[in-house]
C-alpha cells in the first residue's frame, strides 16, 4: 500500500493501537479513519473535541535580526507589525503571484517567528526560504516536533483538565508554553481549537492524558478534510496551487491594504491582477440532492458553456448534504448563480453559495 519512501508518524504505534485505517497523503502514511468512521468522527469534533495527529505538517523557526525582513519578502506580510504572539494566515507566492504554499506565521519574539507549512510543500518551502535567507541576516530552522490539533467546543476544557491553561490565548495567537512547545489557538475545522507542536515524549504523555477524557477522540484525515471543506477552508494542492493567486482564491483579506504596495515576491503580478480583476474566483458550491460532486468535475452554465471546475467536493456530515468549492468565471461568482456539474455525464444542478457551509466558532475575545 505504501512505498519505501513513505514517511511514518512518530506516534504511528498509538494510531495502530487505536485501530486506525491508514492511507498515503503527501508522502506520509496517515490515519484516514478510526473505528467510529468518518461520519461519527466529524460530528464528534463539532460536538466535543477531536484529536488530530498533524505531524506531517512542518514547523520552521525563523530568527535573527533580518527575520521580519525575510518574511516580508517571502510573504505578502508586514511581519514587524505583528504583536508578539499574534499569528497571521499568509502565503509564499511565486513571481506570478501564484501560491507556492499557504502558511501561518506567528511572532514569538522581537526577531523570532514560527512558520507552519503544509506537508506536501515542506521541502519546497524550506528550499525557498533558505534561498531567500541568504539575502537577509536570518536563520531558518526546521523543527523536529510532533504536531497535534485539538479541535471542537470542548477543546479548551479538555486541555485545562490535562493541565494546560488556554484562557488568555485568543484565536490566531500562539505562544511557547513549555520548553520546545509551540501552541496556537487555530485549526482547520472552523471550530475553536488549538495546534500544539511538542517533543515526542511530551506528546505521548499529553495524548495519553487527553484520551482519558471521554470528550476526546482520535480523528482521521478523512474527517479533517470534510470538516475543513464545510468550514470553507482551502486545501493546498487542490483549491490553491502555484497557478492560483490570492485574488482569484478570494483570500485578499489575508493581505493588508498597506502591504499590497510592498515589495514581496509576486507583488507586481498581484497588483496587475487586482487592477484588471481576476478572471475566475473561488466560490462555494451546493449541489442539489444527495449526490456528491467531486474535485475535477467540470462546471457549465445554464446554456452548457464552460463555467469553471470543482476543486474540492464531498459530503458534509454536519450540513447533511453534499458540499463543494471550485473556481468559476468572475461573472458567475455571485451567490445564487445556478450552474451544473458534470458527474459521469449527468448534469447535477449546483448553486453558487457563500462560504463557509457551517459557521466558524472561533474564540476571538
Amino acid at each position: 500500500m505504501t512505498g519505501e519512501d513513505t514517511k511514518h508518524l512518530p506516534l504511528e504505534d498509538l494510531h495502530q493501537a487505536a485501530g486506525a485505517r491508514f492511507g498515503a497523503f503527501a508522502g506520509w502514511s496517515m490515519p484516514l479513519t478510526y473505528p467510529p468512521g468518518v461520519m461519527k468522527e466529524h460530528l464528534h469534533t463539532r460536538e466535543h473535541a477531536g484529536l488530530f495527529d498533524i505531524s506531517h505538517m512542518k514547523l520552521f523557526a525563523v530568527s535573527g535580526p533580518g527575520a521580519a525582513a525575510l518574511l516580508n519578502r517571502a510573504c505578502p506580510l508586514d511581519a514587524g507589525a505583528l504583536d508578539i504572539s499574534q499569528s497571521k494566515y499568509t502565503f509564499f507566492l511565486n513571481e506570478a503571484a501564484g501560491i507556492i504554499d499557504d502558511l501561518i506565521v506567528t511572532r514569538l519574539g522581537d526577531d523570532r517567528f514560527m512558520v507552519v507549512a503544509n506537508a506536501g510543500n515542506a521541502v519546497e518551502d524550506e528550499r525557498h526560504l533558505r534561498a531567500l535567507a541568504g539575502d537577509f541576516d536570518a536563520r531558518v530552522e526546521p523543527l523536529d516536533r510532533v504536531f497535534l490539533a485539538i479541535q471542537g467546543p470542548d477543546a479548551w476544557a479538555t486541555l485545562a483538565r490535562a493541565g494546560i491553561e488556554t484562557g488568555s490565548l485568543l484565536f490566531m495567537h500562539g505562544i511557547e508554553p513549555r520548553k520546545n512547545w509551540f501552541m496556537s489557538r487555530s485549526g482547520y475545522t472552523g471550530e475553536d481549537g488549538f495546534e500544539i507542536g511538542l517533543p515526542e515524549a511530551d506528546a505521548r504523555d499529553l495524548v495519553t492524558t487527553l484520551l482519558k477524557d471521554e470528550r476526546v477522540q482520535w480523528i482521521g484525515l478523512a474527517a479533517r478534510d470534510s470538516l475543513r471543506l464545510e468550514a470553507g477552508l482551502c486545501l493546498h494542492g487542490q483549491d490553491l496551487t502555484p497557478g492560483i493567486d490570492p485574488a482569484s482564491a478570494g483570500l485578499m483579506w489575508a493581505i493588508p491594504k498597506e502591504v499590497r504596495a510592498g515589495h514581496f515576491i509576486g507583488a507586481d503580478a498581484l497588483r496587475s491582477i487586482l487592477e484588471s480583476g481576476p478572471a475566475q474566483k473561488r466560490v462555494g458550491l451546493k449541489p442539489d440532492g444527495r449526490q456528491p460532486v467531486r474535485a475535477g468535475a467540470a462546471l457549465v452554465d445554464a446554456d452548457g458553456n464552460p463555467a469553471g471546475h470543482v476543486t474540492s467536493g464531498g459530503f458534509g456530515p454536519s450540513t447533511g448534504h453534499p458540499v463543494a468549492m471550485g473556481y468559476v468565471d468572475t461573472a458567475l461568482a455571485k451567490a445564487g448563480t445556478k450552474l451544473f456539474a458534470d458527474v459521469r455525464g449527468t448534469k447535477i444542478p449546483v448553486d453558487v453559495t457563500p462560504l463557509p457551509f457551517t459557521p466558524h466558532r472561533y474564540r476571538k475575545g
Partner: protein
Amino acid sequence: MAKTYFTEDHEWLRVDGGVATVGITDYAQEQLGDLVFVELPEIGRKLAKGDTAVVVESVKAASDVYAPVDGEITEANASLSADPSLVNSAATGDGWLWKMKLSDESQLASLMDEAAYKAHIG
C-alpha cells in the same frame, strides 16, 4: 434453492431462478466507509461482465461496482436513495444494490464460494 457467489472485486450474488441479487461484501463496505449516495442503475439496462453497474459514494470518494456477470437489470434497491447507509449496516441483506436476469449462467462457475472468498480477503 438460492446459492451465493463472490467476486474478487468484493461483490456477492445470490442466484435464484436465473435472477441474481447483487451487493458488496461486508469487507468492501468497511473499506469504503460511510456511504452517502448510491447511483442506481436503470431497469432494463443490459450489462456485460465488468461494466460499471452502480457507483457508491462515501464521504470522501466515489467507487464503481461492476457487473459480475452478463445480464439485464430487473430491479434496483430504491430504499438506498433515502438511506445509503443500509449498505454499511446490512451489506449482505437490506443493503443489496440491484437484481439482474442472467444471460449466461455458466459464467457463475468462475466465481468464488464463501470459503474461497474468505481465503481471498485473508
